[in-house]
Every structure is written in structure tokens, then in C-alpha cells.
């Protein structure tokens, strides 16, 4: 029963809001989250949970797959370092609230020390540890090797390498031109643009949260929820036919999920207006087109004009930076929006123009 509940909770339709909510809690109470006490309790509590999880044969089967091991490692590291940054930020923020400098700026930490042996040895230790780790990893887990290549028979599911599974998961909601091309390009471009958008001079060279709240929230949300979370779903929870399978669910080939998605135009013309689909493509999709233009073009303007924090942003950043930033945010948020639309309304495409290979 508990397992079924967890299976159910893991479904993206449930787990995504949960993850978002947890993210909100973490940000809201980052000092609690960043405390050693939290870490200790979390670790202690997670041990029985992990044992419970690992005891399940279906979960164990997936987690021990050699190619899934790096994701496990990634998870542990991400969890630890997320806590760790928050821990450090909490300390620094508390210090700064008290009018002190951050830890990194304390005189004893500003002191200049010799690279030899301080730095060189640290590096050497890291290298040795890393090498040892890699060797052990290589001994314990054989690199995967499946049947010889056979172009006439595709394994099911056919998955991309794990670091691209976030993109593949996006394919559920977007067509390849968006999920595979536009979004990745925007991610890279957005990352490169970060220093030019974020003109906040504070927080350079030390951990903190308060000084650069919005920067950290946007980045962490993209990184943790829209990237790492989607990878986890793609790796562990997507089985044959890219159908969802709970962590304790057996990957039954024949699983069918009731899913029939409808385009916005169909919604409006058929369900709403009750007349047939117009022949002209642009007319047919006019609502979607208007909506999209409004979303990308209108929302940033509206935010800048109508909301107080938007106005502040606009003034702080200046028009170019502001619109650049807002476009990126709007595009980034299109993914969760599309997800929600799918779950609530079985929405397939906002703009459905398969004739032009232009679906959105």
C-alpha cells in the first residue's frame, strides 16, 4: 500500500508540484534547511527509507543498472552540495545580518598562503581520491554492453545518454524542435548571458543567499527542478514506450496509460464553438498564435508596468537586460506551464501546425 502510494506520488503530475513545493520550502526556510541539525536528521531518516527502497526488487533492478550509477552519485552529490551551499549561505547571511563580513572575507581567510604545498597538495589529494574512486567504480561496475548494433530492431525504451534525459523528458511536452533544439540553445545562451544580466555586485566570492535572492532562486529552480528532477524522471521512472512507471513498479511492456491529448484549436473550435475546424491553417490556430504572442510579448511588458517588483527590476536592470532576462524566464517557465496544461486539460499543442512541422 505504501509502495503504491509512493508509486502514485512519483508520477510527474504529482511529484512535480511536490518538488516545486519542497523547493519553495527550502528557499523559504533556507536557514533551517542549511543547519547541521537538519542534515543530521535528514541523513538519519533517509537510512531506513533507503533500505526500504532498496529492498524492493523492481527499484533495485533499476538503480543497480551500471549506466544508472552515475545518476545515483549525481543525486547524492547534488543533495549534499545544495545543503552545503545553503549551510554556508546561512552562516554568512547570519554574520552579515550582525554586521560582520562573510567567512571568506575574514582576515585569516584573506591571508595569502603558499601554493606549495597548500594548494598543490590539496589538489593531489583530490586527484588520488578521485583515481581510487574511479578504479573501485570500474572494478565494481562493468561498463554496459548490450547486443551488437541492429538497426532493424529498436530496444524499448530507446533512451538517450542520461545527461540528455532531461531533454528527452521535455519531448513529452514539446516537439523536438523545441525540446531538442530551441530550449537547449536557450539554456546555453542563457547560461552564458547570466553575468551580463545579473549586475548585482554583491555576493561575489562568497556564499550567501539574501544578497542575491532572485538570481539564486531562478538558477536553482532551473538546475534542480527543470534539469536534475527531469533527469531523475527520465532515468528511473520512464519505461517502455516512455510510459511512466513508479519506482516500485515492474516495467510491464504492455502497460497502457489512458492518454489522449487534444490541441487548443480542437478545444475551441469543436468543444467550445461546436463548429468544424476551419480549412485555413492560420485561422484554425489563431487562438494559439495569439496566446503565444501574448505570453512571450505581453507578459514581460505587463510585469514591468503593473507589478512593483517588476518595476523595480526594470529600473535596476534597464530595458535590454530586463527583456533579455524576462524572455529567458518566460521560455523557461513555458515548460512547467505546458506540463500543467497537459495534466489539467490533456492539452497537446497550443499551436498545432503539423503541416509546417510547427507545433508548440
Amino acid at each position: 500500500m505504501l509502495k503504491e502510494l509512493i508509486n502514485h506520488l512519483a508520477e510527474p503530475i504529482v511529484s512535480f508540484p511536490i518538488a516545486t513545493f519542497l523547493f519553495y520550502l527550502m528557499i523559504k526556510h533556507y536557514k533551517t534547511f542549511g543547519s547541521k541539525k537538519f542534515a543530521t536528521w535528514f541523513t538519519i531518516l533517509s537510512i531506513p527509507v533507503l533500505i526500504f527502497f532498496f529492498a524492493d526488487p523492481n527499484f533495485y533492478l533499476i538503480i543497480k543498472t551500471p549506466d544508472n550509477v552515475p545518476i545515483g552519485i549525481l543525486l547524492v552529490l547534488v543533495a549534499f552540495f545544495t545543503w552545503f551551499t545553503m549551510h554556508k549561505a546561512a552562516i554568512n547571511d547570519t554574520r552579515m545580518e550582525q554586521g560582520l563580513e562573510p567567512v571568506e572575507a575574514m582576515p585569516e581567510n584573506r591571508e595569502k598562503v603558499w601554493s606549495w604545498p597548500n594548494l598543490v597538495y590539496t589538489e593531489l589529494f583530490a586527484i588520488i581520491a578521485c583515481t581510487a574512486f574511479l578504479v573501485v567504480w570500474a572494478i565494481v561496475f562493468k561498463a554496459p554492453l548490450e547486443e551488437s548494433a541492429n538497426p532493424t530492431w529498436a530496444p524499448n525504451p530507446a533512451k538517450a545518454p542520461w545527461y540528455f534525459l532531461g531533454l528527452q523528458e521535455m519531448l513529452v511536452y514539446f516537439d523536438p524542435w523545441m525540446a531538442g533544439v530551441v530550449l537547449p540553445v536557450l539554456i546555453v545562451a542563457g547560461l552564458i548571458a547570466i553575468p551580463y544580466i545579473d549586475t548585482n555586485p554583491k555576493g561575489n566570492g562568497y556564499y550567501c543567499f539574501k544578497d542575491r535572492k532572485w538570481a539564486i532562486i531562478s538558477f536553482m529552480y532551473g538546475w534542480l527542478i527543470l534539469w536534475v528532477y527531469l533527469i531523475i524522471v527520465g532515468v528511473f521512472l520512464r519505461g517502455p514506450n516512455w510510459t511512466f512507471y513508479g519506482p516500485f513498479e515492474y516495467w510491464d511492456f504492455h502497460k497502457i496509460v489512458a492518454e489522449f491529448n487534444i490541441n487548443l484549436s480542437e478545444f475551441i473550435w469543436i468543444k467550445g464553438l461546436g463548429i468544424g475546424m476551419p480549412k485555413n491553417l492560420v485561422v484554425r490556430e489563431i487562438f494559439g498564435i495569439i496566446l503565444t504572442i501574448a505570453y512571450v510579448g505581453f507578459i514581460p511588458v505587463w510585469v514591468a508596468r503593473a507589478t512593483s517588483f517588476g518595476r523595480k527590476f526594470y529600473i535596476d536592470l534597464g530595458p535590454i537586460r530586463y527583456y533579455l532576462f524576462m524572455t529567458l524566464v518566460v521560455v523557461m517557465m513555458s515548460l512547467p506551464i505546458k506540463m500543467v496544461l497537459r495534466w489539467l486539460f490533456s492539452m497537446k499543442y497550443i499551436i498545432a501546425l503539423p503541416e509546417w512541422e510547427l507545433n508548440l
Partner: protein
Amino acid sequence: MAGNGLAKKVRDTQVWKSIFRHGPPDNARNRAAVIAGNVFLHLHPIKLKKSGVQLGYTWCMGGLTFFIFLALTVTGLLLMFYYRPTAEYAFNDIIALREHVPLGIMREIHRWGAHAMVITVWIHMFRVFMTGSYKPPREFNWGIGVILLVLTLLLSFTGYLLPWDQLAIWAITVGSGMAKATPFMGNAGPGAMLARIGDFVMVSDKNDVRFQLLGGRFVGEPALLRFYILHCVFIPLVVGVLIAVHFWRVRKDGGISAPL
């Protein structure tokens, strides 16, 4: 540690002196000389702020990424002795590495190292963001870093095909399938159907970006060769150059970031 008998004798030889131009790094002068006089170590500054050497601050993820890159280069070079990128042999050669090549475990190290590098480079970026180290004067170097991250993914992706098993070709089929949808440049992308005059199809599966990447319409032998060359020569060269730029800029932009 001017040392006793033998060690001192060795240090006094002309050969030793020709290699190491300074005494043991137990005093300020020699500590500086170790770093400055060594082509590899002089990547580092002679002295740096204490926060910069604290693992708690740097996590050493950038350094590890670079080290894993070097480890991958070495293991990769060695693997090339046994691996032939042809449809007939690729799979058999991987089997050979698994079954009978002495220390064929090199392949496991190479593969897991590749995954580890993806992870370390991501976490490196995470750390750099969290410490705000992309801020002026380090904007440009952050950009280089992002490009290096993308190249790391591409390196891993191109290497994924080489074992030439089902996992490989279908992962690449799925992955490269996205290129088909590139607007205006992929045959299934928006706008592709505009690029035609009569029966002259300018963007088709015979000439789009995916074809260029794979050297064919399917993941076939030409794709194997192309990915091999990209994986072993082309991308590593670019990465090497960019790493040099990255390091150079770290030094020129004031070393590891610290509070202003």
C-alpha cells in the same frame, strides 16, 4: 632538510641540478621557485588567498574535472590501440577489451570517468554560480566555462556510440534525431518545407544537419567514423585549447574568486 649523505649527494649532482633549479621547498624562496619554475605547476599563482585553498570553498570540482579530462585522454589514447571504428570490428573490439585485453578495465575507467566528468563539471558550475564567481571581471571566463560544459557533454555523447551496441546506436539515434527538428536546417524542423523549389528539396534527410553529423541518413558506419574522429581528435583539441584559455583567464582575472 638539507639532508644527510645520499640524498644530499643526489641533490648535488649536475643532473639533479639541471632539472631542479632550486632547493627543497621549505623556505619562501624555494616555495615560490617550485611553482614558478615548473611548467605544469606554474598554472598556479605562487601565493593565493587562504579561502582559495579551502575545499569547503572550492570543492575542487574544477580541478577534478581537469584531472578527469587528463585521465580520459590517457585511457582513451590507450584504448585506441585496440579499437577499430568500423562496423565489422567496433563491437568485437569492445568485447575483446572486456574479455581478454590485459587491463581492459581501462574501458570501464574511461566510461565511468566520462560520466564523472559530466557530474564534476556540472557541480563546478553550480559552485561557481553559488559563490557569484561569474561576476566582473570573470564574465568572459564563465562563458568559456559554459562552452566547455557543452563540449564535455558532446565528448561524452560522441563516445557513447563507439561500442556499437544496441545501447549505443539507439541512444545516438534518439539523440541525433533531435537535430532533424532544427528549424530551417533539419528536414523535420519548422520552416524546412519552405526551402524547396519544385522538386528541388533544399532541406531533406539527405542534406540536413543530421546528415552532416552522421554522414548518412541513419546511424551507420559513416556515423561511427565521424563520431570517432569527433570524439578522439576534434573535440579534445578544441577542449584543450579552451581549457588553456580558461586557466589563463582564471589567473589573469585575479585567481580563484574571493570577497572583494
